Every structure is written in C-alpha cells, then in structure tokens.
C-alpha cells in the first residue's frame, strides 16, 4: 500500500492544516486513513495515497456546490444508494457502450447495484488506459463480472494482458500485486473511488441521496 506523508499531502494538494482537520471532523476523510507510524522525527501521520489524493480532489471540486455535510453523506461508503434500474444505465457515460451491452447480456432487464456500476466504469477506464480494442471489451466485461462475485466496494480491479489476452483480477486495496516478467502492462482502478465519482456525477440515479 502506497503511503503519503501528511506534510507531502498538504504540499501536493495545497490544502491547509485547518482544511484537513475540518474535513476529518466532518468525516469527509475517514479517521482510519490517518495512519500513524514511528519515524526518526517522532510519530508521523501518513495516508493511503491511492485513496486520499482522489478524495481531496473530490472535495476541492465539489465543496462549493455542496455543503460539507452533504459531501460527507455522498462520500460515505456506508450509504447504500439502492439499485439503479437497468433502463437508466444508458445515462452513465462513464460506462462504454460495448461494456454496457455485454453487462446487459449477462443480466438482462435487472437492476444494478452501485458496486456493479463501479465495476463497469472501472472496466471502461482500464480498457481505455490499456487501449483494449472495442471488440475485446465485451469479453473483458464478462471476465471482470466473473471475478467480482462476492466483491465489495473496497476492492480494486486490475486489468492486465497475458500476451494478447486481456484478463481481470479483483483484489483488496491493501494487497500489492507483483506480476512475473511476462506481464508488462497492467492498470488498477479503485472501485471505491469510482463509486464516489459515479455518485457525485449521477445523483439522480441514487434515490437515497435525493434528500441530500
């Protein structure tokens, strides 16, 4: 798990101590992300880099649109936004049409959970980054769905090539992957961050957030 020090975090994001601690009090930054480690200077605080940077970016992008308590609700992993009707999937531009079509074939006419939507958006992002051919996206989608059985939002999707074949792997966020030398190209997407982005961009799709 990659960690970033508090000092470096403030330098990279440009936020102040006051902002950091205000967002912690508002539960916009989970307390468990403040990881204390002993160092030669005493005790220092670190954060999981893959989670904290996108989170701060989300907050900075949206803090003028929503109140801190609204943001806290939207970003909370405890919120169960219900399911999205299959017919509404078309409005989610973060999911490529080929991925959408493959998903609908797997689960025709059914509703989709936030986890599943985040997975499809993650497949789209990984496919784009790794230049997966459009005709290969359906197979990648099926593989990802097959790997995701019983998965949860705190998982990470890693897409990689074995030769010319594309594969999908679901693993915990704190589980570092070390591939053998045959595998040179891989891309990982955090489902939690993808889910938060979807909630932020498509509030109308999630009934439980409508009161916010």
């Amino acid at each position, binding site marked *: 798990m990659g960690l970033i020090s508090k*000092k470096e975090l403030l330098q990279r994001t440009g936020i102040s*101590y006051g902002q950091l*601690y205000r967002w912690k009090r508002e539960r916009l930054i989970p307390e468990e992300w403040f990881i204390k480690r002993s160092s030669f200077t005493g005790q220092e605080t670190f954060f999981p880099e893959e989670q904290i940077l996108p989170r701060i970016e989300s907050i900075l992008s949206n803090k003028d649109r929503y109140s801190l308590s609204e943001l806290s609700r939207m970003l909370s992993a405890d919120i169960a936004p219900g399911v999205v009707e299959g017919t509404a999937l078309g409005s989610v531009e973060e999911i490529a049409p080929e991925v959408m079509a493959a998903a609908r074939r797997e689960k025709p006419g059914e509703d989709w959970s936030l986890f599943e939507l985040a997975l499809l958006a993650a497949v789209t992002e990984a496919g784009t980054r790794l230049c997966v051919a459009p005709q290969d996206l359906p197979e990648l989608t099926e593989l990802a769905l097959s790997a995701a059985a019983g998965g949860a939002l705190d998982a990470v999707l890693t897409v990689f090539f074995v030769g010319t074949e594309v594969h999908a792997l679901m693993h915990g966020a704190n589980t570092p992957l070390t591939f053998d030398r045959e595998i040179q190209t891989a891309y990982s997407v955090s489902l939690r961050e993808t889910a938060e982005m979807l909630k932020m961009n498509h509030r109308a799709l999630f009934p439980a957030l409508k009161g916010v």
Partner: protein
Amino acid sequence: MKDLEINEFGSAPGGEYGDVEINGIGKVKGDLACKSLEVNGVGKVSGAVESNGAVEVNGMFSAEGAMRTENVEINGTMEVEGPLACGALEVNGALKSGALQAAEAEINGAVSADGGAAFAGGFEVAGVLKAAGDLTAGDTEVDGELSAANASVQALSVAGSMKVSGGLTGGDTEVDGELSAANASVQALSVAGSMKVSGELTAGDTEVDGEVSAAAASVQGLSVAGSMKVSGDLTAGDTEVDGELSAANAAVRRLRCNGEAHFGGLTASEISVDGALSSDGDIEADRIDCDGEISATRQISADEVRICGGVEADEIVGDRIEIGEEEESQGGGWQFRWAGKRIAVNVSGKGGRPARRARLIEATAVRLFGVEAEAVNGQDVTVGPGCVIGRVDCSGTLLISEESEVREVVRPSAQE
C-alpha cells in the same frame, strides 16, 4: 326499588335494590345492583357490584366479582376481586382490586391494582399505589409511592417515590423525590431529587439540580447544576454544566462548562470552558475557548482553539490555535528573531501557571505561550515566552521568543 339495610348480622339474596346500607356483618349472595352502597361494618358481595351512585366503605368490604359505580370513597378497606371502574375514587384506607379504572383519583391510603390502573383525568397519590400492570393517567402527582409496569401520563410531579419497571411516557415532568424507570420519554424535565433510567432517557429541555443517571440520553437544552451520569451516549442541544456531567460519547450543540464535564468523546459546535473538561478520546468543535482546564487523551480538534487556562492532549490540531497570552510574559515585552537553524535558549520560569502540554500541535496558524510540546507544525507559527518545544516545522512565518526553548526548527528547503 326496595332499599336494603343489614344491621347486626344478616344476609340478603343478590338482585336489584335501592340504597344499600350494611352496618353490622352483612352478606349479599349473588350480584348486587343498587342506587348506592354504604358499608360501616363488614360487608361482602359474592358477585359483581353495580351502583348508580356512590360506594362508601367505612368498615370492610369485599366483592367477589367486578365493581362498577359512580364514585368510590374508601375510609376502611375494600377488596374487589375483579376489575373496578368508577368515576371519582378517593382512598383514605386501603383498596385492592383487579384492573382499576377511574375518571380521577385521590389516593391517601394504599391501593394495589392487580391489573393496570387507568385514570382518565388527574390523579394524586399521597399514599401508596401499586399497579401490577400499566398506569395511564392525566396530570399525575406523586407525593407518596407509586409503582407500575409501564406508565403513560400527562404532566408528572414526583415529590415522593415513583418506580416504573418498564417505560415511562410523560408530559412536563418534575422530580423532587425519586423516579426510576427502564426507559423514559418526557417533555420538559426538571430534577431536583433523583432520577434513574436504566435504559434511554428522552426529554425536552432538561434541568438537573439533583441527580440523574441513564444508560443513554437524548435531550434538548441541558442544564446541569447537580450531577448527571450517562453511561452511554448523550445527545443534547445547548448544554451548560455548573455541576458534574459525564457520558460516553457526547454530541451537543454549544457546551459551556463551568463545572466538571468528562466524556469518552465529545463533539460540539462551540465549547467554552471555565471549569474542567476532559475526554478519554477526542474533543471536536468548530470553536474551543478555555479559561479553565481542558484535556483529551487523544485529540483536541477545532477550527479555532483559544486556551488561556491549562491543556493536556496528545494532539491539538485545527486552523488557528492560540494557547496562552502575550501578557503572561515577564519583563515587559519580548524579542523575536528568525530561526533558520538549530537554536537552544533558556526557559524563563513561569510559576503558578497551569500546565499546557501536547505531543503535537498542528494548525494553519499557531501562537503559543508557556506551552510544552514535542512537535509544532504550522504554516505560521509563533513560539512565545515560556515554551519548550522539541521540533517546529513551519512553512510560512516563524517567530520564536528568546525566552523559549526550541530544540529543532524545520523550514521549507530551497527547492520547495
């Protein structure tokens, strides 16, 4: 209808009568229906009793069935094996019945209801009322003793003792004596005596001059001049502590602590301390103002922290932190110099000042006077006289008094 009068020793068959009077030892065999019933001796009805008027018992009376009558006045003892339903009930002696139902009641003696007790109107207990079942009443005044399984009343005033083994629901409640319940949900609550809730207490504006204890409490405004102990969570609006208040986790609106408050963890919008506030966990607020003592085992976190009294915490963090005051410095005025490298200066003695200690103090802007800390991090940092700091990491403006000691200073490197 014919009246019935039994003097000395006699009996009569059950049936319908006019006015019935038992002066000796009399028995009615069967159900009795009458205009009125007066028992001055010993009377017994081996059935139910129904009276259009009053029942008055000055001696001893028992009915093997139910009783339904307009008004009941008991100066002696009455036992009704079935339910008793009446208009006004006045008990100066003793009453034992099944379920008890009255429009209104004044209990100076002892009443034991095997079922529940329901009083449509007002209800006063100067004596003893024991309801094995539920109590339902209008405005209730307990100067004696009252016990019930569950109780649902309007305004409640307890000068004596009231025990509810289950839940209590009430309107505005005043406790000068003792009140205990498993759970309690009332409107405005004022406790000068003692109130014990083994489960959850829910109330409107609450004033505690006596003692209150609960497993959990959720109230509106809270004022504690006496003692309030919540073993679990406390939720309250504006809270003022002049006495003692403790809870596991507390979430309040504005807290003013002139007395002593101790929490597992505390979240508030504003905190003002002239007394002593302590937490086994964190203290979080938008603003903290302390002229008394504040301590947290873990973290004190607020946008604005101003402490002139004492403070002890593992971490004090926020946006603007000011601990101590300039006027505390001795010798009139103090000098600063830029610190860009390791320095070591003597600490001037500051006898009589409360302890101000933290492992880490970290905020956008930090001003410290007479503070001991292992590390101070901030954008703009002022270390005033009397401070002993291990390490200062400052990215912006740094001022260090010559009357303080700072072992190490970290500044942005040239590349940053």
